[in-house]
C-alpha cells in the first residue's frame, strides 16, 4: 500500500506554469478521428502498467479492508470491524502521534535546512557545483545503507563514533536510538539529513528563477541582507516552497524505511509509526485485513492533507 500514495505525488510534481493557462482560447470539442486515437495508443502501456500495478492493488486493498482475509478458506465479509480494530488499538493511536510528530518535525526541519543549504550553495562556480553534488549524495544513497551507517555512527557506547566526539568535549555517552526518550528525535535528525538536500534542489531551481535585476535594484536602494530575503527571495520562492510542502505532506505520513532500518519501531515502541505498525500486523502477524484498513485510512489522510496543502498554497498564490 505504501506506493499507492504515490498517485497524487505524480500529479503535483508537474511544473506549474503560473501564467498562460487562462489566456489560452477555449478548446472546441473535436470530432473523434483515428488521429485522436493515437495519443491514447501511446498511453496504453503506461496506463496498463498503472492499472495492473497501482490501481488494481489499490482496489484490492480497499476490498481487503472490509473482510477477514483468509486466502485459502475464502474471505469473510466483516464490514467495518477492521477499521474499528485499528481505531481502538492504542498502539495505532500511539503510532499516529509518533507519525505526526516525526512527519511534521522532519518536514519543517528539512525545509529549513534545505532552504539554508540552497541559499548557501546558490551560484554557478565549479566549486559550488562540487559541494552541491556532495550535499545531494544522501538522496541518491539507498535508505537501508544510510540507516546502517547512522546506526554505526550512533552506537551507544563511549567507543561509538559520535559518542567519542562528544566525549572529547566532555559530554557523557548518549543512548541515542536505544533510549526511548531520545530515539524519535534521532530518527527525525537522520530523516532531515536524508531529505533536506532534495528540498535544496527544488529551492535552488526557484532561486535560479529570480530576476537578477531585482537584486541589483535592491542593492542600489541599499537594503540589508535580511530585507533582501524577506522582500525578494522568499516571495519568489513561494511556488517552490509549495511543491516542497506538498511533497512533505505526502511523504511524512507514510514514513517507513528510515524507522524500519534504524530502530524497527523500538525501543519500547517509542519510534513506531503508522507504516511500521501496518507492516508488523500485515506481514508478521498475518492480519492482512486490519493492515489494509490501516493503509486505506493512511491513503485518505494523505489525500486530505495533500489537497489541503494545495488549496492553501493556491489561495495564497491567487491572493498575490
Amino acid at each position, binding site marked *: 500500500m505504501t506506493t499507492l500514495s504515490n498517485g497524487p505525488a505524480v500529479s503535483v510534481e508537474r511544473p506549474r506554469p503560473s501564467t498562460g493557462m487562462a489566456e489560452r482560447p477555449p478548446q472546441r470539442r473535436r470530432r473523434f478521428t483515428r488521429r485522436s486515437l493515437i495519443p491514447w495508443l501511446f498511453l496504453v502501456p503506461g496506463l496498463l502498467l498503472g492499472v495492473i500495478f497501482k490501481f488494481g492493488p489499490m482496489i484490492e486493498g480497499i476490498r481487503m479492508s472490509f473482510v477477514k482475509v483468509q*486466502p485459502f478458506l475464502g474471505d469473510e465479509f466483516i464490514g467495518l470491524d477492521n477499521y474499528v480494530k485499528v481505531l481502538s488499538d492504542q498502539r495505532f493511536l500511539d503510532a499516529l502521534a509518533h507519525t505526526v510528530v516525526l512527519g511534521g518535525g522532519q518536514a519543517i526541519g528539512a525545509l529549513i535546512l534545505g532552504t539554508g543549504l540552497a541559499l548557501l550553495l546558490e551560484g554557478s562556480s565549479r566549486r559550488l557545483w562540487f559541494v552541491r553534488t556532495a550535499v545531494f549524495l544522501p538522496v541518491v544513497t539507498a535508505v537501508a545503507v544510510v540507516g546502517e551507517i547512522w546506526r554505526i555512527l550512533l552506537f551507544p557506547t*563511549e567507543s561509538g563514533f559520535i559518542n567519542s566526539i562528544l566525549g572529547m568535549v566532555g559530554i557523557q555517552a548518549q543512548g541515542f536510538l536505544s533510549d526511548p526518550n531520545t530515539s524519535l528525535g534521532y530518527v527525525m535528525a537522520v530523516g532531515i539529513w536524508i531529505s533536506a538536500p532534495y528540498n535544496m534542489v527544488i529551492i535552488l531551481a526557484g532561486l535560479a528563477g529570480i530576476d537578477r535585476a531585482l537584486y541589483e535594484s535592491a542593492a542600489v536602494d541599499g537594503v540589508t541582507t535580511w530585507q533582501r530575503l524577506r522582500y525578494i527571495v522568499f516571495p519568489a520562492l513561494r511556488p517552490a516552497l509549495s511543491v516542497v510542502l506538498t511533497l512533505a505532506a505526502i511523504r511524512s505520513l507514510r514514513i517507513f524505511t528510515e524507522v524500519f532500518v534504524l530502530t*524497527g519501531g523500538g525501543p519500547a515502541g517509542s519510534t513506531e509509526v503508522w507504516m511500521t505498525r501496518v507492516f508488523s500486523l500485515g506481514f508478521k502477524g498475518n492480519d492482512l485485513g486490519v493492515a489494509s484498513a490501516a493503509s486505506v485510512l493512511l491513503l485518505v489522510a494523505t489525500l486530505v492533507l495533500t489537497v489541503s496543502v494545495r488549496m492553501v498554497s493556491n489561495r495564497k498564490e491567487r491572493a498575490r
Partner: protein
Amino acid sequence: MLKTRTIRSGLALAITVALVGTLAACSSGDSSGGDDKSLEVWTRSGPEAAASYQPVFDAFTKKTGIKIDYKPILEFDTQLQARAGQKDLPDVLINDAGSLGNYVSQGFLLPIDKSSIEGSDQIADKTWDENRGTDGKYYGVPWSRQAAVTIIRKDWREKLGLPVPKTWDDLSALGEAFATQDPDGDGVADTYGMVVAGSAQSGYALRWAASYLFQAGGGLLKYNGDGTYKSVVNSPEAATAVEWMRKQFCTPGVVVPGSINLTTADTPFFGQGTAGISLTGPYNISTFEANVGADNVEVIPMPAGPGGGVTSLAEGENIYFGASSKKTDLQKQLAEFLITPEAQELAMKVTTNEAGVVSQPVVRIPVNKTVDVAAVTGDPRWTVAADAYNDSENFPYAIDFLPFRQIAADELNAMLSDCNSDIPAGLKKIDDGFVAELKNQNLSQ
C-alpha cells in the same frame, strides 16, 4: 507523411500488444498436475540449511523414485500466503512447529492419521502431542526439535581464568568480565558479554527472554486440559526474571550496546568476535565454529536460575501436508522416510556441497528416539544440547501464538529498554493482553 504516421501507429500497436502479452504471461501461474510421481516441498531455509535438506531428498528419490521439487524459501510465510491465494499450496511444507496453530486456523493443513504413519512409534508421545490442534487431531509429523543453549567463547573465558558459569550470577559476572577485561587482548574495550536480539519485531525479545522466564519458574500460558488456556505470565517469578534480564541490559557491556533495537539478523557479534555469550539454538554451533574456530566454541549446561531451574525454550520443525494436495500417499511416504534414522542422521551431518556451501544441520535434536545424537555427531556439545532439550518448554503450538508473542515481546522490550521501568505494571499489561487475546481466539475458559 501519412505513411510515416501509419507506420508509427502500427509500431505503437505492436509494442502495446507485445507488452500486454508479456504481462499476461507473467500473471498466469503454472499449476502442477495431480497424477505425476513428484512432490513440491517447501522449507524455510537459506542456502546453508538447503544444503542439508538436499541430500535427504536425493536419498528419498533414489529409494522410492518419487521426484522432489524442492524449494528452499526464506520469506516463507509471505510466499505461502501468495500460494494460498491461488488455492494451490505446496504438497509438503517443512516449517516451525510454532506455525501449526496459525496454519490450521487458515485451513492450510491436512490432519494426519498418526497410526497410519510407519515408524510413528519411534517418536516420543510427548513430541507427537505437541502437534495436536485444539480439536485434538494431529496436524504435523515431527521432524526436528531443539532447545536454546548457552554458547560461550571458551578461549576468552580461559584467558580470564574464569570457571564455567553455573548460575545466573556467574553468567552475569562472566559477561561483565568479557566487557571490561579485554578478553581478546587487543588493548581496546571493544568486546561485550551477551548477544541479545532485543527488538520486539517478530517477537525476538520474547524468544530470548523465555528461557530465563522459565528458569525462574515463570510461565506464559497454561493449558487447562479442555481446549482452553489460562494466562500465567503475571507472577513474582516472572518479575524476578525480568528484573535480572533488565540488570544485564543496564550494566554497561554485559549485553552488546544497542541490542534493544536488534533482530537476529543484526546480531552477528559472536561470530564477529565482539561478544562472548550467546543464548541460541544449537544449529549455530557449526556457524560459530566456522567464524571463531572450533576449539573456541563452548556449549555449557544452562546456568541455573534463582530456584535452580534450568528449563530452556524449545522449538522445532514439523512436516506439514498441504491441504490442496491430492497426493496423500506420496506425502505420507516422504514423512515416513524423513522420520527414519537414516534420514534424520543424514540431516544432522555437516557437509560441504558442490557449490562449496557448508551445510547447517536441519535436524538438531532428532525426533526419532533410536537415533543417538552423541554417536552421530561425535561431539559432546550436542549431548549438552540434547540434555537442554530434555528439560525444556515450548510455546503452545496448537494455537495461533503469534499475537501472544507480539504482546509479550512489545512489553518486554519496553521493560528492558528503561532501567527504571515498572516491571509489575509491565507484566500486568502482558497479562491483560493475553486475557484479551485468549478471548479473541475463543480459548478462555
